[in-house]
C-alpha cells in the first residue's frame, strides 16, 4: 500500500506542476515508444510546436490496443490512438469511440486513401524474408511445390499472421484452402508473434519467415548486413497500413486533431521510416533513408477494404485452421 500511496502522491504532484500545460494522451503499441522506436523523437518534435505535454501509453500490439480501448470504453483517458492497422479499422469504428478528423495530405500509398476517421502514417508489404543466397519461389503455388521451410505467425495472436491469412484469401478466394494445403508441409511451425518467428529464422530453423519487404532495411542500415532479402510474389503483396485516429471522448479535441495532422506532416514522416522500419505514408522532403532503395518493390499491392475484413477474416481463419490442423 505504501507503494500505491507513494505512486499516487508522485502522480498528483507531477500533474499539479504541469497543470497549465494541457496533456495529450496517445495510446500506441509497445515497439513504437521503446527507446529505439520512433516514439521519443515524435514526442520531442510535436512538443516543440504544441505547447503541450505528449504522453504515450504503450500496450502490446495493435490488436491488444483495440482490446484495451474496448475494455475502457468511453471512460478511456486516451485522446489519440496510434497504431491500429487496416485489418482493425472496421472493428475500431464499430465501437463508436472514434471521431473523424479532417486531414489533407499527398499520400504516397499504392492505393487511394478515403477513410475519414483514420489517417495513415506508415505502411509496408508483408513478404517472406530469406537469406540473400537463396533462390526464392515467386508465388504461393511455387512455394507449396518447393521443399523450402517457412515459419509463419498465428493469425489469432499476431498481426503479420493475420496479414498472411488475408493475403492468401484476397489472392485466391475460394481456392485459398488448396493453397494452404499445398504449403502445409513447408510450414515448420507457427509462432505466437513476429519476434518468435523472426528469431527462429535467424537461428536457421527455416529458409524463409513471414515479415515485411522493409525488414532487410534494418539489416542493411543498422547492421550493414546485406545478407537478407525479401521474396517478390507474382500474386502481389498484401499491405499493412498503420493508422492514427482521435477519440470522440477526448478532452483535448483540437490538440488531438493537431496530432493526427502532425503525424502525416513532413516533420513526423521524415522521422518514421528508420526506427519503425516501414514506408512513410507521405514522401518526406528528404526522400527515403539510404538503404531503402535496395528494397524490392512489389508490382501489385493488395488490400481488402476495411469494412469487408471482419467477415472474410473469420472465413479465412476457419479455412486456415482446417488446412493446417490435419
Amino acid at each position, binding site marked *: 500500500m505504501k*507503494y*500505491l500511496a507513494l*505512486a*499516487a502522491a508522485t*502522480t498528483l504532484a507531477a500533474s499539479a506542476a504541469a497543470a497549465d500545460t494541457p496533456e495529450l494522451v496517445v495510446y500506441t503499441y*509497445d*515497439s513504437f*515508444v*521503446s*527507446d*529505439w*522506436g520512433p*516514439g521519443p523523437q515524435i514526442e520531442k518534435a510535436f512538443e516543440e510546436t504544441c505547447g503541450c505535454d505528449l504522453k*504515450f*501509453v*504503450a*500496450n*502490446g500490439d495493435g*490488436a*491488444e490496443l*483495440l*482490446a*484495451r480501448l*474496448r*475494455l475502457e470504453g468511453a*471512460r478511456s*483517458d486516451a485522446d489519440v490512438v496510434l497504431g491500429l492497422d487496416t485489418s482493425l479499422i472496421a*472493428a475500431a469504428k464499430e465501437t463508436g469511440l472514434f471521431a473523424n478528423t479532417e486531414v489533407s495530405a499527398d499520400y504516397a500509398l499504392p492505393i487511394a486513401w478515403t477513410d475519414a476517421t483514420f489517417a495513415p502514417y506508415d505502411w509496408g508489404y508483408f513478404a517472406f524474408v530469406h537469406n540473400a543466397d537463396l533462390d526464392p519461389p515467386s508465388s504461393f503455388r511455387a512455394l507449396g511445390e518447393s521443399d523450402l*521451410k517457412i515459419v509463419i505467425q*498465428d*493469425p*489469432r*495472436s499476431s498481426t503479420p499472421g493475420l496479414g498472411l491469412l488475408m493475403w492468401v484469401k484476397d489472392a485466391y478466394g475460394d481456392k485459398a484452402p488448396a493453397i494452404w494445403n499445398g504449403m502445409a508441409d513447408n*510450414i*515448420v*511451425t*507457427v*509462432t*505466437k*508473434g*513476429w*519476434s*518468435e518467428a*523472426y*528469431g*527462429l529464422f*535467424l*537461428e*536457421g*530453423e*527455416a529458409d524463409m519467415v513471414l515479415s515485411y519487404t522493409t*525488414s532487410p532495411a*534494418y*539489416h542493411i542500415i543498422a547492421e550493414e548486413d546485406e545478407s537478407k532479402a525479401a521474396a517478390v510474389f507474382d500474386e502481389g503483396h498484401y499491405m499493412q497500413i498503420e493508422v492514427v485516429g482521435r477519440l470522440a471522448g477526448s478532452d483535448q479535441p483540437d490538440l488531438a486533431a493537431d496530432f493526427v495532422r502532425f503525424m502525416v506532416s513532413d516533420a513526423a514522416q521524415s522521422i518514421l521510416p528508420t526506427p519503425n*522500419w516501414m514506408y512513410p505514408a507521405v514522401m518526406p522532403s528528404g526522400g527515403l533513408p539510404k538503404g531503402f532503395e535496395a528494397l524490392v518493390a512489389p508490382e501489385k499491392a493488395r488490400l481488402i477494404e476495411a469494412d469487408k475484413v471482419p467477415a472474410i477474416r473469420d472465413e479465412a*481463419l476457419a479455412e486456415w*485452421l482446417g488446412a*493446417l*490442423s*490435419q
Partner: protein
Amino acid sequence: MAGRTLSVSTFTGISAAALVVALILAALLAVISRAEWGGGLTAADWAAIRFTMWQAALSALISVLLAIPVARALARRHFRGRQVLVTLLGAPFILPVIVAVLGLLAVFGRSGWVNGLLGWLGLPEVSIYGLQGVVLAHVFFNLPLATRLLLQGWQTIPAERFRLAAQVGLTPGAMFRVIEIPLLRQIVPGVTALIFVICLTSFAVALTLGGGPRATTVELAIYQAFRFDFDLGRAALLSVMQLVIAGSAAVAALWILPEAGFGSGQDRPVQRWDARSGLPKALDIVLIGLASGFLLLPLWAVVLRGFVGLLQMPDTVWVAAGQSLMVAAGSILLLLVIALSMAGWIATRARGSVEAIGLLGLSASPLMIGTGWFILINPVLDPALLSLPVTALVNALMALPFALRILVPRLRDTVQDFGRLSQTLGVRGRWLWRWVLLPRMAPQIGFAAGLTGALSVGDLGVIALFADLERATLPLQMYRLMGAYRMEAAAGAALLLLAMALAIFWLCDRGGRHLAGT
C-alpha cells in the same frame, strides 16, 4: 486428536486463503461482467481442451518417469559439484518461454547440434516440431522440478531402512520393490498432478514446438477470444474450464500427496550400502550425465548466444533489470506473508486439503487475471502505476503452491515437536514466529523465497497488459528488443536474466541455510 493444538496463524491463514480466492474470483467476475454472452464453447474449443489435457498428461507422465531414475541416481551418488549441479538443473524451470525455446532449438532444432551430429554421421535428421516437441519442451521445463521433488522424497526414507536392507543383503531389485516402490507410490501421483497443472496453461511452447494450429491449447483459445474475437464471455468460460480441470487435478493430487513431500531442502545424499559398484554405478553415472546434458546443453546455448549480446544491450535493459529485481523482492515478500500465514493454518489442521487453494493461482490463465484486474483497476487508477505491484502479486500467486509444498511439512513437524513447549512458555503470535517458527524454518523459507524470486524474474506474466515505458521488467524489455529486430541484444538480456534468476535463487537458498546454521 481432540487436543488443544497450538494456534499459529489460523485467522491470518484463513484470511490469506480468502484473499487468494478473492483475487482470482474478482478477476473472473470482472471479465464476466463485461461479457456479452454469445454461444457456448465451439467444437474448436473442445478440441483445444482435449489437446491441452492430452499434452499436459503426457508431459507430466514422461517428466516423472524420467525423473525417477535420475532422482534415484542423484540420491545414491555423492560427488564433487553435486550441489551446484542440483542448483543448475533448476534453471530451465525459471527461464522465460522464448529463451528456453530458442535454447532447445539450438540443440534439437533443424539446424541444431543434434541434427548436425546426425548429419555428420550420415543419419536422417529428426524433427522437433509436433507433439514430441511439445513434450520435449515440457519435460525440459519440468524434469528438474520432478527430480527435485522426488529427491526430497527419497531423503525421507530413514537411514535405518537402508541399514536394515544392507544387513539382510537385499539385491538392488529387491531394494526397489521393498523400499522404493512404496515411496514412489506415495509421491509420484502428486508430482505428476503438479506438472500436469503447470503444463495446462502452456501456450507459446505448445504452439511453437507443436508445429502449428494442431497444437492449440486452452490458453491460446483464451488469447484468441480476448484478442481476435473480443468475446469476453467465451474467454471467461474457457478460463473456468481451465480452473476446473486444474482444480480437479490439484484436489486429487493433494489427496495423495504425502506430507513429507518437498521436505527440508537439506538435499544431502542418504548414506547407502547398495549399488556401490559395477553396473548400477555405471548406470547412475550415465543417467546423471544424460540428464545433465539434456538440461544443461540448451542452457549453454543460451549462454553462448548471450555473450555477444551483453555488450549491445541498451541502458534500458539495466533499468528493466532493476525493476525486475524490485518485482522479485516484492513477490518474495508477498509470497512469504501469504504462504507462511496459510502454512500456519494448514499445518495445524488434521488434513491439508485446503492447500488446493494454493494451486488456484497457478491454474488460472495469466491473461484472464491480468484482464480482470485491468477492468477493476482502470476506472480508479492508471493501471500503469500498479503494473509492478500487480506483477509481483501475480508472480507470488504462481509460486504459492510450490512454497506451500516446501513450508507445510516442516511447519507441521515444528508444531508437533515444539508446540507444547511454546504453549507452556506462553510464546505466541509474533513472538512465536520470531523465536520458534522462523528460525526452525529458515532453510525452507530460503528455498521457497529463492524459487519465487527466480520465477518472478523470469516471468513475463501480466506486465505486458499494464506496463508503460518507464515500468518494464527484464523479460518484457527482452521481448521489446526482439520485436525491434535486436535479437543479439535480446539474447544478452536473456543471459542477464538467467544469471539474475540463478543468483537470486542461490542467495535466498544459501541465506536460509546460513541462518539455520547448517
